[in-house]
């Protein structure tokens, strides 16, 4: 009798809990991803053809992109569409909640679209199946060729509603596309959507290009190029294709990054065997020297409030990470662990610094607090480096190289991503080998 009572109470408790809004715990690695049903969007029969777009398949294709985004987070488990129990148009009006619960879905995404007069109109709804109610609904009108971006924007809205965090799907990744043998690599700047679609090559591969980085406030890019065999930092507008050398330095400039307001570039300038950190204001062209030390000071990265710069220096003998005020004062070493440290990158949330660590012939990507405490190594490999944050500070993208044989065979360079929890390591699909990724901010912000 007592036992029955306990079970009964437990049931009430669970029942109550299941009536609460869906919550996803994103503070830990997710071993129990939320089952979500993403219904194909209903295509209105009044839809007209548009420039070779397969209108009939558009509803399926949009839902496929959303599904793919959600699977990629590791936080969600998009259910197989064969199990779906309701037609898209009917489900979008009002789902039969008990039927969807039967296939173990906890959230449902429905939608419909209409292509008419050269415009694409998409609306979607997110349903909480346990609470049997609508959580959010939105409609967009745009040009039909924008259908992929619309899919990403919908994904971001759903992600935000379910996790309480900003999404990162309507974003792009700029990187260096690599081809050719290891000792004669051809490198080009390339850009793609975060899910690997829409790859475009921005340079032809005539000169070596390295380390492209997005301006966090717009679609400008800074990178390093060996154009005319003069290694310099460049600025590139990816909308217009115009580019220019940054500053007038009598030697190599490298390791560029934007300040958080996008108005300055911080970088290294090497002269007579010594690399120091400089900034240049893009409007006034004023150059400031930030470090003045006989060691190598490089890989600078601003804190998101612009007040500090993290960088790596070998002033102690080997590479370690340091933090200073953005005017160069108050330099403080923050890494003291076993091994050497490079490529500090400040999280857009401001609370963590991502880094590359080298120890006993292995390379690690890790995160730590901005004072160097709380180091967590996320992934270990033969060679990997150059983490870049997703705009919401939840995921890191980096590149990994494989060991090669005596003639360079077996060599590859690929982009990978990992959650800051250390879970959900994934390879980003790229058309070619790839390195030096940089994640853009949200395009629609």
């Amino acid at each position: 009798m007592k036992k029955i009572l306990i079970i009964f109470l437990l049931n009430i408790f669970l029942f109550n809990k299941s009536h609460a809004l869906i919550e996803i715990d994103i503070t830990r690695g997710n071993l129990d991803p939320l089952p979500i049903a993403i219904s194909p969007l209903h295509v209105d029969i009044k839809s007209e053809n548009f420039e070779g777009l397969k209108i009939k398949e558009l509803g399926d294709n949009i839902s496929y992109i959303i599904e793919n985004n959600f699977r990629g987070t590791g936080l969600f488990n998009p259910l197989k569409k064969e199990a779906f129990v309701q037609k898209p148009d009917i489900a979008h009006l009002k789902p039969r909640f008990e039927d969807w619960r039967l296939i173990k879905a906890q959230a449902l995404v429905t939608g419909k679209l209409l292509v008419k007069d050269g415009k694409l109109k998409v609306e979607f709804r997110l349903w909480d199946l346990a609470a049997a109610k609508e959580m959010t609904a939105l409609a967009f009108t745009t040009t039909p060729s924008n259908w992929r971006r619309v899919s990403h924007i919908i994904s971001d809205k759903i992600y935000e509603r379910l996790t309480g965090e900003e999404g990162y799907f309507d974003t792009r990744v700029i990187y260096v596309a690599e081809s050719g043998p290891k000792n004669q690599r051809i490198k080009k700047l390339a850009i793609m959507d975060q899910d690997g679609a829409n790859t475009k090559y921005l340079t032809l591969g005539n000169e070596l290009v390295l380390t492209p980085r997005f301006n966090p406030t717009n679609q400008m890019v800074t990178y390093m190029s060996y154009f005319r065999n003069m290694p310099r930092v460049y600025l590139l507008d990816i909308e217009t294709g115009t580019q220019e050398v940054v500053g007038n330095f009598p030697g190599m400039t490298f390791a560029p990054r934007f300040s958080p307001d996008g108005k300055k570039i911080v970088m290294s300038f090497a002269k007579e065997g010594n690399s120091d950190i400089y900034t240049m204001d893009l409007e006034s062209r004023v150059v400031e020297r930030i470090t003045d030390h006989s060691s190598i000071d490089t890989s600078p990265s601003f804190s998101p409030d612009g007040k500090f710069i993290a960088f790596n220096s070998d002033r102690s003998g080997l590479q370690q990470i340091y933090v200073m005020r953005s005017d160069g004062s108050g330099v403080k070493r923050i890494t003291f662990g076993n091994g050497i440290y490079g490529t500090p990158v400040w999280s857009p949330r401001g609370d963590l610094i991502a880094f590359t660590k080298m120890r006993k012939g292995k390379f690690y990507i890790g995160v730590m607090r901005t004072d160097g405490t709380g180091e967590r190594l996320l992934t270990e490999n033969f060679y990997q480096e150059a983490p870049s944050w997703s705009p919401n500070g939840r995921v890191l993208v980096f590149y990994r190289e494989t060991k090669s044989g005596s003639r360079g065979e077996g060599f590859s360079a690929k982009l990978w991503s990992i959650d800051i929890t250390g879970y959900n390591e994934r390879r980003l699909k790229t058309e070619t080998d790839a390195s030096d990724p940089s994640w853009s901010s949200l395009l629609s912000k």
Partner: protein
Amino acid sequence: MMFNKNLKNILLVIFATLILSACSTAKKSGNIDGDVYTGKETVEYLASGVPDRVFFATNKSSLTTASRATLRKQATYLRKNKNLNVTIEGHADERGTREYNLALGERRANAARDYLMTYGISGKRISVISYGKEKPVNPASTPLAWSQNRRSVTVKVN
């Protein structure tokens, strides 16, 4: 007394040599001595008997005794060929982060340039460029290949 002191010195020298040779046999494997490549493979020549490159230890840009001998040969050659200008290319192995390696290559190339300048070659005749880890001469992922890739190479420009 004098004899005694001499003997003591000789013994010390012998003892030191023994320790050193023990050290070098311990660290020496093939053509790598204490992490620095000492072989001839991959080496090209500016002229007969004038090697074009010197090698470095991991993360280091200091010149070894052998490197200084090579650079003195280059300096002699450049003094004889007064109209010749050179570029020194600095390189690193693949076992470091890209940006640090760019700086390290630059530091290595300048170490070689500075040495040539102390032997009377005008700095105006020597430009430097760093390629970091971008241009390995040996593409293998082995300690031998890495030691061959940690180098500065003097290249004729005219």
